[in-house]
């Protein structure tokens, strides 16, 4: 390939992909559209996970808690207070942002294991509150009859219309994340990863940027949860338990925590293999339930951490790079 050609391809690729996906909306079947809709919804949360884990270097085991806050905020706003869904979704993002700002400065003083445990505890507290505050949340049985999303006169009440909405939204968010990481903020986060003390010594507000990443990841998780609520039109606390937080971590690790396409790729691989395994595994282990799927993904996660700690994309890249070097 001529020099520069690859760069041009790289620049055109996302647009071509997006165009292909939008064109595909017309021909895909309902079950395919449904699967992609879930993939897109979770990609939004996993994008935030990548920002937090990959770029800010902070772990969270409570991300599903923010999804829950987003989902329940918009649900309560639309079903109990009659707000339009768009306002509910925006309110959900604001609620997550406020919660994350309040918690971030305190919780992010912790590192590594302790941050993991504190966020795990936060997620569990949210879970317990959702289950116990029956008057507001409907308790363990959840909330029904959530209106589908509509913006102005546009209704997103079918698989296909929601598909267009969520695919474009996810693409825009990926573009936003790419630009954010190429800005001053991205360079500051990189400096923090390389060494917090060094970053501080060139007067980078380490805590400020960590909190920023935490808040953005919470807002993205909240948006994802809110979209989930309007798409599925039913939510319950069980949908936002600790296992979901771990699933988000598995998705980001499958893709790559430090890449723009990593989150989307991780979610795609996760959902496609989950879809397959849910049909395949019960045939092999008839007495085991759905948790066999998680066993499988846990084994994958262990293998990734040991053999490809930066995710599968860079590992494949390294392999290809080695091969290319050998060829030369």
């Amino acid at each position, binding site marked *: 390939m001529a020099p520069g050609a690859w760069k041009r391809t790289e620049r055109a690729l996302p647009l071509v992909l997006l165009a292909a996906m939008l064109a595909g909306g017309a021909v895909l079947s309902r079950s395919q559209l449904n699967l992609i809709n879930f993939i897109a919804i979770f990609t939004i949360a996993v994008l935030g996970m990548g920002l937090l884990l990959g770029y800010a270097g902070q*772990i969270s085991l409570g991300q599903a808690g923010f999804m829950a806050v987003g989902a329940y905020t918009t649900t309560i706003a639309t079903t109990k207070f009659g707000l339009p869904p768009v306002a509910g979704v925006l309110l959900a993002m604001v609620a997550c942002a406020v919660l994350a700002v309040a918690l971030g400065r305190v*919780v992010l003083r912790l590192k590594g*294991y302790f941050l993991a*445990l504190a966020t795990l*505890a*936060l997620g569990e*507290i949210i879970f317990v509150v959702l289950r116990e505050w029956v008057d507001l949340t409907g308790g363990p049985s959840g909330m029904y009859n959530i209106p589908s999303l509509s913006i102005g006169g546009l209704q997103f009440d079918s698989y296909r219309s929601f598909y267009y909405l969520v695919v474009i939204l996810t693409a825009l968010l990926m573009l936003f994340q790419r630009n954010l990481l190429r800005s001053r903020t991205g360079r500051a986060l990189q400096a923090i990863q390389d060494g917090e003390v060094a970053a501080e010594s060139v007067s980078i507000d380490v805590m400020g940027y960590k909190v920023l990443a935490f808040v953005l990841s919470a807002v993205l998780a909240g948006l994802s949860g809110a979209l989930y609520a309007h798409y599925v039109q039913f939510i319950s606390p069980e949908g936002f338990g600790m296992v979901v937080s771990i699933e988000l971590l598995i998705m980001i690790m499958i893709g790559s925590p430090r890449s723009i396409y990593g989150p989307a790729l991780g979610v795609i691989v996760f959902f496609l293999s989950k879809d397959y395994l849910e049909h395949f595994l019960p045939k092999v282990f008839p007495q085991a339930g759905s948790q066999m799927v998680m066993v499988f993904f*846990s084994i994958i996660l*262990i293998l990734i951490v040991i053999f490809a700690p930066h995710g599968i994309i860079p590992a494949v890249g390294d392999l290809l790079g080695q091969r290319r070097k050998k060829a030369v």
Partner: protein
Amino acid sequence: MNQGQQFLQYTLSGLTTGVIYAIVALGYVTVFNVTGVINFMQGELAMLGALLTVSLMAWGVNGVVAALAAVIVTACVGAAVETVTIRPAGKAGAHGLILITLAWSLIIRGLAPLFWGTRSYKLALFPDLGEALNIGGAVLPRETGWILAITVAVMALLMIFFYRSFPGLAWRASASNALAARLMGIKPRTMSTLVFALSGALGAVAGIVVTPLTLASFDMGFALGLKGFVAAALGGLTRVHGALLGGVLLGVFEALGGGLVATGYKNAIAYVVLILVLLVKPEGLTGRKIRDKV
């Protein structure tokens, strides 16, 4: 029951669960002191120990033998996890080890129903002692005596191990100064395997002891493990007596909070305590201050 009796009742039952939390907490303390790792599968090891004992006893094995065998098998699981996955991931850092031990907890919890299904099991480990004790109007099941006795025995054994045996000496040496211990010929790898085995054994003991009170099932591990960690953090994460103090405090606190305030929110109490401890007093009640090293 009047208020005083209620208070006494909750305190006593909290004390019982508290010492069980303390045993789980000891599992975290042994591993953390030497390797600096927090083992997220600790609770699942307790579940494994409990259900193995149930199965062995169902096959007609004597209770004490069954419990001992379960403890040994669980210790081997701990050691195997360390050798196969923790050691090769040496360079993965805290995030990597969090993910690995979390993944193991999901694997153990996911595989358990293959062998034990999803039902709850009773464990008639302690001989029937007749009626419950009545202390000042508060009712205390007789099993409590056994649980306290076993806890004291485990603590005593641990103390003898730590202060009177060579591996225990090596453990204390590695915990107080890993580099110096290494220079004295103590292999950090061997120590790491050893402490994971020990934490498996402690987890199993906790699971076996808790079962007569709460029944055993495949999903008992998560809450027990997290509460054990809260107890460990409350006690300072590095001291054996801190774990006991933390466990008892958490147990009593939880019983009082659940009994007097709101039952449904009982599970959240431990999580709130955890966040408060980590933020306000991260060195715990007995531990030394942990300073960041640059």
